[in-house]
């Protein structure tokens, strides 16, 4: 096992990794940008090294600085977390050249999975179906028209160099093709400097189901079952669960077999995820390989709660050259796990990320509730990074039971100071379609109006009453720091009409 691990990340995932390291007796080194000097992940680690200014390019994306920090701190390995450099083959390579263990698969596996073309080739080699589509060698209007005709309409046109849904455009009818190509190419050139386009079949409100896999350097591969991640906004997951609701047993077997075959073909040698899109329902379902993520997934706790494993421990064991700590026959799904991502964002304003200071922060707790958070009371949520504040994970014997525990936890997850998506999450959890497990990736868009209803009822009544009580009693101060702040004298306006303190 490693003796001192540098965690090249921030926020909840850095803290998550620290926790496993503590239990393993592995020392941890945090890194931080100037925006994160006082962040919880820095306080939690055994050592900490500054990287640079807040901008990701100068801190968490600055591979050379991270490797320097590892050298300074005497670390013998680097865990990239997710996002940032976690899927950079070049960074994994650089770690190896610097004599540092890299907690992830080998650079060539990362490289292959990261390339759309190579990944599709791997899938095909493993006999895993891919969404019909191609990057036509002939990128003229004619060539692209032929490609659209080959997959049929609706078709999806996307920049080959892109990712994360950026610049994608749906062609509903053949007649739209020409205009769509022109527009998509313009955007592709603007965004990625490369106008090459990719054409694929556009699936109708598919489900996003992914399979957790793990392999070691001895060629052993297991899967740790599936996760349903169909509740998405702007191609980003919001709620994930395992097992996937109403997934036919035969389809689960096919999905997990496909994922293991792909991992085996790729020589996959750490923990990773194979993502699929599933179209149709019941026996008529078909699935297609979407992509392979060569890192710890944000939603990994859902798998940890239902299978009972510690995936970060597995990552470290394998990266340190150890054996895959799990055998397929001993792995079982038990109960139901669900994760809600709590973002600092304003759902009503198109999920606009929010930054600011968390003035009040109270985490709920209870049987079956796990919270992986990266903030605390007083934390500043910086504008530079992903606005994920925390993940609430609930498990229970049955799905309805896990949902009930989740609802109760979110109802008591008091966060004030920045807008969050807590109310939206609760609206989804209580939506009849969601409760019935009728999920697809279009859910959030389709139900948008119902989900964005402003809160009312007894919550509003209680909040109004407490606001009035607190103001009249003049005691609703800021927590903790209140002692340091000069106390406001008696509020002169409370006995006078027409008055409000503050900016107009």
């Amino acid at each position, binding site marked *: 096992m490693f003796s001192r691990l540098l965690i090249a990340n921030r926020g909840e995932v850095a803290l998550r990794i620290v926790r496993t390291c503590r239990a393993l007796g592995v020392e941890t080194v945090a890194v931080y940008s100037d925006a994160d000097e006082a962040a919880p992940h820095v306080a939690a680690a055994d050592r900490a090294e500054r990287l640079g200014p807040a901008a990701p390019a100068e801190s968490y994306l600055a591979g050379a600085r991270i490797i320097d920090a590892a050298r300074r701190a005497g670390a013998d390995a680097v865990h990239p977390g997710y996002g940032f450099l976690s899927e950079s083959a070049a960074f994994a390579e650089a770690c190896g050249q610097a004599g540092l263990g890299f907690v992830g698969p080998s650079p060539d596996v990362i490289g292959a999975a990261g390339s759309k073309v190579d990944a599709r080739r791997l899938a095909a080699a493993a006999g895993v179906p891919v969404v019909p589509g191609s990057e036509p060698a002939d990128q003229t209007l004619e060539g692209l028209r032929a490609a659209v005709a080959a997959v049929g309409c609706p078709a999806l046109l996307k920049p080959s160099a892109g990712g994360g849904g950026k610049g994608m455009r749906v062609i509903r009818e053949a007649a739209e093709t020409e205009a769509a190509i022109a527009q998509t190419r313009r955007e592709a050139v603007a965004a990625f400097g490369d106008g090459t386009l990719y054409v694929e079949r556009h699936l109708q409100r598919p489900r996003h189901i992914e399979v957790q896999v793990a392999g070691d350097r001895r060629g052993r591969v297991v899967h740790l079952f599936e996760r349903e991640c169909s509740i998405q906004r702007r191609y980003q997951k919001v709620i994930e669960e395992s097992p996937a609701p109403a997934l036919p047993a035969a389809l689960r077997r096919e999905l997990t077999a496909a994922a293991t075959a792909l991992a085996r073909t790729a020589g996959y040698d750490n923990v990773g995820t194979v993502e699929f899109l599933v179209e149709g329902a019941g026996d008529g379902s078909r699935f297609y390989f979407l992509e392979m993520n060569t890192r710890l997934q944000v939603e990994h706790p859902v798998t940890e709660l239902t299978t009972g494993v510690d995936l970060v421990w597995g990552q470290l064991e394998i990266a340190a050259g150890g054996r895959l700590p799990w055998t397929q026959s001993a792995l079982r799904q038990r109960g139901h796990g669900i994760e809600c991502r709590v973002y600092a964002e304003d759902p009503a304003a198109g999920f606009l990320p929010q930054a600011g200071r968390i003035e009040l922060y109270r985490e709920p707790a209870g049987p079956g509730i796990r919270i992986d958070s990266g903030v605390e009371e007083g934390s500043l949520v910086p504008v530079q990074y992903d606005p994920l504040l925390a993940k609430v994970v609930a498990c229970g014997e049955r799905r309805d039971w896990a949902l009930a525990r989740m609802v109760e936890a979110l109802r008591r997850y008091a966060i004030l100071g920045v807008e969050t998506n807590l109310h939206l999450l609760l609206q989804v959890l209580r939506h009849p379609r969601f409760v019935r497990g009728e999920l697809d990736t279009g859910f959030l868009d389709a139900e948008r109006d119902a989900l964005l209803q402003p*809160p009312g009822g007894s919550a509003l009544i209680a909040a109004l009453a407490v606001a009035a009580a607190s103001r009249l009693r003049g005691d609703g101060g800021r927590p903790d720091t209140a002692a340091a702040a000069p106390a406001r004298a008696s509020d002169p306006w409370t006995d006078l009409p*027409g008055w*409000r303190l503050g*900016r107009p």
Partner: protein
Amino acid sequence: MTSGSRRLRVRSGTVSRQVEVAPDGALRVEGAAEPVDVTRLDRNTYRAAVDGRRMAVWTVDDGDRCRVFADGCSFTFELDLAVAAAARSARPDEDAALAAPMPATVVATRAEPGQSVRTGDVLVVLEAMKMELTIRAPGDGVVDAVHCRQGDLVQPGVPLVTMRPRRGA
């Protein structure tokens, strides 16, 4: 309203409700059937019982606003003792005179005689004790007169704006 009660107008986005606090502490929220029973548990935590069912509610002051979390929902409220002027009088449709609560400098006037205004509209902006203070319309109505100008130093209790409620509003 009960004699000796205090009223607050609590606003958030499109929501604007009146909360009446009786001398015995009972809180009546406009639109709620029963008074709400509120107990303070610690600096920022309250317990509110709505229709007999209790819930934890957290709150924190944020400058002039009040942030509240209840039952998975967060709210940012602005509070005015807006309707108290009317309330003090036995005749709720009497003209309202709006005065400064302490010596202050007029930063700007935002109303003109005859102008129609809605609840919460800013009429005058003042500065006192390095804080910016706003005088807002306590209800929908029409401005009768503006008794101050930018730069004036005004004394507490002296009317700055008088307005009358909109009839039949």
